[in-house]
């Protein structure tokens, strides 16, 4: 039976989340202390050796991100923890933040030391209000213990963190939109370059990282980059925190090495709920992919997923039993994107609603075979011309369901034509 490998979740459910004593009793803030005893280059080189890639979906190497901001000369730099976990069905960041907030704070402090920042923000999803007091209390306790604030551990390094409430928009998980939101502006993505690492929050160099990414940093510093690089698969090191949801027997959050087979994860969580048959999976969140059971033998790491036309994304695995209607699911997902598109760029603003319109018509028995060609073409245009990842990825469920569940579309069109 598949066992969890807990790096990010090592303290969750083991400690009182706001207690600095509990966290330190399990080695907390020793990594920060160690990092502060190293030069910034030495600390960065451990991160580089670990080959850790961002866990928010894009998979960008964190060492590279830190080195870009480190290299910029500026009077002020910022570290932002992206805790705007907006993917429906994804709960991993919530579990980490509410169960072990200090691991994230410590990761932010290490990143800040390397990049040369003195100020951090946790951008907390608007729909997670109950986590707010947990973070505030944990921060207060950490400051009192001298783990955050001015002159940390007598090293001369200053770093403090503020918690900012999100604006309640999915798109604010995109880093430039998130930055605009903290600045008090409309949460809309900006064209890159300039990248936030060079010109970000309030025009200053800013490192934006996902909760899970940051929570890995203390363990990498503590145990060494090589230790981390030996977990997972060569190009995708470490673990991944997965969220299992939908019609699965044992839903919830679990951490496995990168590259763990989807089939094994699915079985470890008891398979389909109530003994029904498996129809397929939705991987990587709402902007992820719908795959059928034939595609289940899939090592879950960023590159393998990409190569097999699937997506690891946020590590969400939604299980669908054979009572689900694929077209209903896709139609519902597209209505989500209509609601969440910020409306800035044409393909996303106008494209999502047209996709929904076509799928709705097919589902309602008003579809035509050429609608499928329009969907294919529109999806490609949205993927290659949209301003941000929302518009670039929102058509994935449409296009993958069209490829992997094509019969469902054909039957619906046929049904309509017969009627």
């Amino acid at each position: 039976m598949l066992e969890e490998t807990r790096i990010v979740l090592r303290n969750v459910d083991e400690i009182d989340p706001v207690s600095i004593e509990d966290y330190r009793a399990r080695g907390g803030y020793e990594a920060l202390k160690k990092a502060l005893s190293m030069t910034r280059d030495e600390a960065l080189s451990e991160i580089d050796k670990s080959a850790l890639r961002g866990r928010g979906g894009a998979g960008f190497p964190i060492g590279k991100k830190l080195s870009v901001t480190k290299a910029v000369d500026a009077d002020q730099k910022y570290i932002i923890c992206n805790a705007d976990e907006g993917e429906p069905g994804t709960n991993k960041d919530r579990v980490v933040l509410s169960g072990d907030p200090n691991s994230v704070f410590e990761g932010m402090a290490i990143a800040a030391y390397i990049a040369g920042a003195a100020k951090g923000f946790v951008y907390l999803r608007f729909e997670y209000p109950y986590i707010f007091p947990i973070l505030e209390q944990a921060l207060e306790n950490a400051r009192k213990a001298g783990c955050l604030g001015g002159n940390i551990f007598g090293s001369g390094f200053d770093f403090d963190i503020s918690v900012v409430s999100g604006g309640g928009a999915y798109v604010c998980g995109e880093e430039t939109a998130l930055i605009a939101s903290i600045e008090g502006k409309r949460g809309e993505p900006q064209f890159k370059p300039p990248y936030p690492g060079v010109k970000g929050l309030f025009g200053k160099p800013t490192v934006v990282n996902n909760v899970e990414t940051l929570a890995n940093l203390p363990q990498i510093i503590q145990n060494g980059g090589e230790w981390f690089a030996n977990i997972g698969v060569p190009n995708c090191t470490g673990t991944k925190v997965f969220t299992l949801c939908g019609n699965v027997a044992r839903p919830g959050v679990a951490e496995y090495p990168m590259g763990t087979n989807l089939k094994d994860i699915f079985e470890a969580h008891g398979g389909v709920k109530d003994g029904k048959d498996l129809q397929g999976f939705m991987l990587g969140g709402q902007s992820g992919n719908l795959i059928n059971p034939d595609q289940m033998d899939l090592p879950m790491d960023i590159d393998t997923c990409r190569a097999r036309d699937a997506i690891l994304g946020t590590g969400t695995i939604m299980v669908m039993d054979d009572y689900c209607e694929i077209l209903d699911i896709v139609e519902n997902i597209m209505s989500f994107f209509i609601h969440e598109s910020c409306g800035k760029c044409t393909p996303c603003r106008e494209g999502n609603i047209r996709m929904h319109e076509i799928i709705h018509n097919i589902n309602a028995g008003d579809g035509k075979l050429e609608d499928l060609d329009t969907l294919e073409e529109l999806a490609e245009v949205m993927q290659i011309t949209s301003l941000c990842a929302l518009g670039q990825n929102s058509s994935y469920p449409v296009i993958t369901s069209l490829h992997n569940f094509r019969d469902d579309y054909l039957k619906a069109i046929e049904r309509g034509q017969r009627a």
Partner: protein
Amino acid sequence: MISLTIDGLPVQVEEGASVLDAARKLNINIPTLCYHPDQDVKANCRICVVENEGQRTLLPACASPAAEGMAIHTNSPRVRKSRRHILELLLARHAQDCLHCKRSGTCELQQVSEDLHFVKTPRYPYRPRSAEMNDESSMSIVRNASKCIACGRCEYVCNEIQTVHAISKVNRGFDVNFVPAYDRPLGESVCINCGQCVQVCPTGALTIQDSCDQFWDALETDKLIVAQVAPSVRINLAEALGEEPGTVSTGRLVTAMKRMGFHLVFDTDFTADLTIMEEGTELLGRVKNGGVLPMVTSCSPGWIKFCETYYPDLLPNLSSCKSPQGMFGALIKNYYPAKIGKRPEDICSVSIMPCTAKKFEARRPELSTDEAPDVDFVITVQELARMIRSAGIDFKSLAETPFDNPFGLGSGAGEIFGATGGVMEAALRTVYELVTGETLKDINFEAVRGFEGIKEAAIQVGDLPVRVAVAHGLGNARKLMDAVRSGKADYHFIEVMACPGGCIGGGGNSIKNWKLMESRLEAVYGEDERLPIRKSHENPAVNSLYEEFLGEPGGHKSHELLHTVYTDRSYLLR
């Protein structure tokens, strides 16, 4: 320098240039919609996408910096397909009434559609952004959201350049819209009617409130139709009719208007000179008697509403002089009828203006006589150009006709009212000579000319070092007014023009950008040089009006007819 290839052609550009700049250097046309040469890049319409070899996603040419070794394709199958599909999405959203749209022929969306050879019906059903109702509440600007393509250019100019904040983006996704606060009608919003949004709108979503029919209707009455023509109209009209920017057409425009049926065509340069006499006298009075300083000009009705809304505490700083349009209207309805043996109601008073806000100004109760407006309606340059075309007149081939008397003579000082700094320069020419009794050696005040956002100068006038400042564009005016409000500005006299560049950049002209503005500016000062009289106090027609009717500048009659009061409009912000 950066070297790259576009469609296989090598090109070199400066560091910081965009792919669009590089393509233009090669005369390769890349369609654009949200891009505007005078604004920051927004990269939201995506019509300018190009392919960079080896990259999965396409790049917006407007926003992508040219990089060494790039191999760009502007006409690959993926690019063609994407641009046409994006256009198709936009067209399925856009009102389908091109044939009778005010922007037909000058619409950028129409042009892009033509450039991409898009000649089919969109696959998607037509879904308008909002009910196809025009917001006609404003006297100056008509808003039609069903023609909006959400490019954001209006929001940029209104918020970033003008700092008026009348139009902002609301809602998200498909429901995005650009509206006044609380979705109020534009006419009940903080909009100051400058029309700069009309100038940047690529489609017919924002257009000028059209008054042409009022003229054609007036032709069917027995009224004497009398027009005044603002200084910058002669600079801009020919351009609006397709001639080179900066082509001055004073005589031809009088001919055209006479052919259309105007009975008398007067020159607003005349009341510009009158304004200088009144305003100069007011300034000297304030300096001598310890009045409120700095005094700020009051010619620009957009600026006046801005001041009334955002700086009501500074209303005492505004000159009490009516604008040249307002002074003209007062003379037409109070002095002229008796002179020609008619009643005021027998006269139809029309203004030809570069300005959309003049339409609002003409409806101010202060600018009326016995509850009848002194100016019956205002026609902008854009409208006049259309009227000339619709009357079948070939403007280019017209002979020249002089303005009519007694209001047909204006000085170079009156003429430069059309450009930022012009009112200030005109005032300095007169104030200097009236105070010192000496003749100016050099009447060109270069320090207040040009397109610098805020200009400052100090001029020794007798014993008094006169400190002046000039701002154009309300974002710049806001900076000056904040300084005045906090007591950090020790100027005597400030000129403010709401529109960037002054009246030659007014919202009622044909569509502009800063490059076109250079030619217009040159034409203004060319006219000034050309005119025989270049100082307002040397205009014999103005002087005889004082002798015959007004008495003296700042006198009783002047105050009754040529001066006005202002209204606190800060309630609009609540």
